[in-house]
């Protein structure tokens, strides 16, 4: 017998062709929207980074975009923090989407404290995702949040008005939501990949 060669080393060295294409690596943080996962370079939300979601108005489907991820995280026993939501989260509605509300902490904060509270939650490392609705957030604030998300290995979601789109942002991912004439989401910036030219349709037939 010659030297025993471990199969895995051969495969890792890619010297052996296995006759079928390797499946695309699944993202660490899938969004739960297959069409969106396909166009995002990380195969989902950029892990440990800030994602900015720009809205024309409240209530256009911004929560449905993130609720599958929140459901996955809370069911896995991880904590999700919501900072200064514009309305009250409806427990029954969130539970219908599969979110375990025992893992959701809601933080009431004034306009000046939203960014601070979000940064604390991100930096703590004990939150899987932090959602916030900052009204006063400049480039420097967002950069701090991006660093905090990286430090605490958490998903950060900042929901902001669409009017901030022309300004540059340090967020790893920027999505713009459109409700009319039909619900779709534009990827405006994604770190580590090219920006897709077409919007991703967002099915809304599920209530």
């Amino acid at each position: 017998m010659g030297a025993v060669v471990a199969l895995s080393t051969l495969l890792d060295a890619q010297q052996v062709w296995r006759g079928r294409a390797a499946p695309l690596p699944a993202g660490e943080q899938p969004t739960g929207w297959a069409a969106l996962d396909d166009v995002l370079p990380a195969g989902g939300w950029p892990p440990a980074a800030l994602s900015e979601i720009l809205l024309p108005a409240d209530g256009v489907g911004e929560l449905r975009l993130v609720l599958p991820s929140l459901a996955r995280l809370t069911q896995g026993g991880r904590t999700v923090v919501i900072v200064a939501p514009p309305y009250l989260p409806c427990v029954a509605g969130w539970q219908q989407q599969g979110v375990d509300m025992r893992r959701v902490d809601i933080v009431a904060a004034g306009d000046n404290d939203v960014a601070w509270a979000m940064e604390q939650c991100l930096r703590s490392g004990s939150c899987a995702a932090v959602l916030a609705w900052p009204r006063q957030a400049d480039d420097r604030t967002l950069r701090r949040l991006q660093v905090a998300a990286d430090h605490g290995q958490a998903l950060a979601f900042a929901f902001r008005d669409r009017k901030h789109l022309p300004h540059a942002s340090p967020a790893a991912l920027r999505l713009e939501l459109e409700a009319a004439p039909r619900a779709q989401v534009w990827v405006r910036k994604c770190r580590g990949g090219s920006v897709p030219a077409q919007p991703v349709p967002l099915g809304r037939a599920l209530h």
Partner: protein
Amino acid sequence: MLWACIVLPHLALDGVLRRNPQSGPLVLVDGPVNARRIVSANREAREAGLHVGQRLSAAQALLTRFDAVPYDRAAVDRWHRFLAAVAYRYSSEVSLLPHAIVLEVSRSMSLFGPWPRLEAMLRADLAALGFRHRITAAPTPHAAHVLAGVSDGQAVLTPDAMRQALQRVPIGKSRLPAMATETLPGMGIRTLGQLLALPRDGLRRRFGAGLLEMLDRLTGDLPAGLDSYRPPDVFDLRIELMHEVENIASLVFPLRRMTGDLAAYLAGRDGGVQRFTLRLEHRDGRVTEVPVGLLTPEREPGMLFELARGRLDQVQLPEPVLAMRLVARELPPFVPAGRDLFDERPTHALPLDQLRERLRARLGDRAVHQLDSTTDPRPERAQAVAGNPCRSGFSREAFGPGFGIRDSGFAKAKASRLKPLLQGIGPRPTWLLDRPIPLRGAAPRILAGPERLETGWWDGGEVCRDYYVVETSLGQHAWAFCAPGEQDGWMLQGWFA
């Protein structure tokens, strides 16, 4: 039996210095007003030529600028008892001796390790608190006390070694009554060893039974006869500031000391603190109270300091502060938080409870909460602030009645019992408005409905509504209702965001 003795030679001065960060000549003075004498001096003062016993007027002639603080017997006594409370962490048998604390450590060593390690822990605790000290160990408390007067760090662990060590102690340092220590050298008795060798009958005739009793206590032939110290059930610490303080930032240093002392005291009691009050004292007895409440009992000094500071930062001082006092009345048992061995969070992660405390310290007691559903079908009452997000009830009603939700028990509506309920109901939005508002704009397009809710006749909050899922002209999906049978006068209840 093994007794450790901690001698605190500069108790009064250390007590003053630890609230006074700046260095400079400082002396403690005592005596009648017209004949004040220095009773203690710090290093800078001694280098400048001041010494203990000097008259204050003589010192002022030597040095123009130095701080003279009156010697405060009550404060010294307070520090003495406080350090006994700290030592209580290491032994259940702690007693007070003049300028010293003795504690029985033979049983403690099985928990804390052999004597050198225990000694190192004691020294580290005292150094962190800012008290100079000498530590010795001996089989009897009085012997340990005598040896501590001779040298620092001496440990005699067996009775024989103790007898040998006592042999060499000069009579002047034997802590015997003054009558004996003054007379004995004149009789040629200069060490304890010589004294112990004298015939007992003669000693009794010359000095009475008291001296023999003391010698027997020293060698362990009689029980030590000390009263055990019991730590108080209330922590009350007051620091008088050297100057009138007008801004909060100057209170940070004393605050750090106070929370550190509180933590040391709690460690001694093996307890935690859940609520304490900072009292900022102004002129004429006026007081600003700053309550600090925590979700769970804590005793980590850094955390106590950070939380207290967070509360203090929000205080507007109405007038200068003369003294600060920390009072903790409720001292519940401390249960360390458990952590999962296979925790997948980063190693530097701040535990969730501490994060909540930090948020509450800045944003208010009711800022952090969770929501849970109730069994009531009316949207305004279908959910409530969960009573117990983190093992205590401070966050109840965090949003208050302004959000139109009623606080109801968490236990009534456990998630498992809700599952069948959820399946029976129609679609629910993800955002809920705190109260319904009229839906403005063009007539919405109906997507689903109606779902009739007719309930509440028993408590006066009767509702009878038809709920629809509608789409507005902006493309938002809304949860709106109108009167039964009509499709007009839409009231917006929530958004399908």
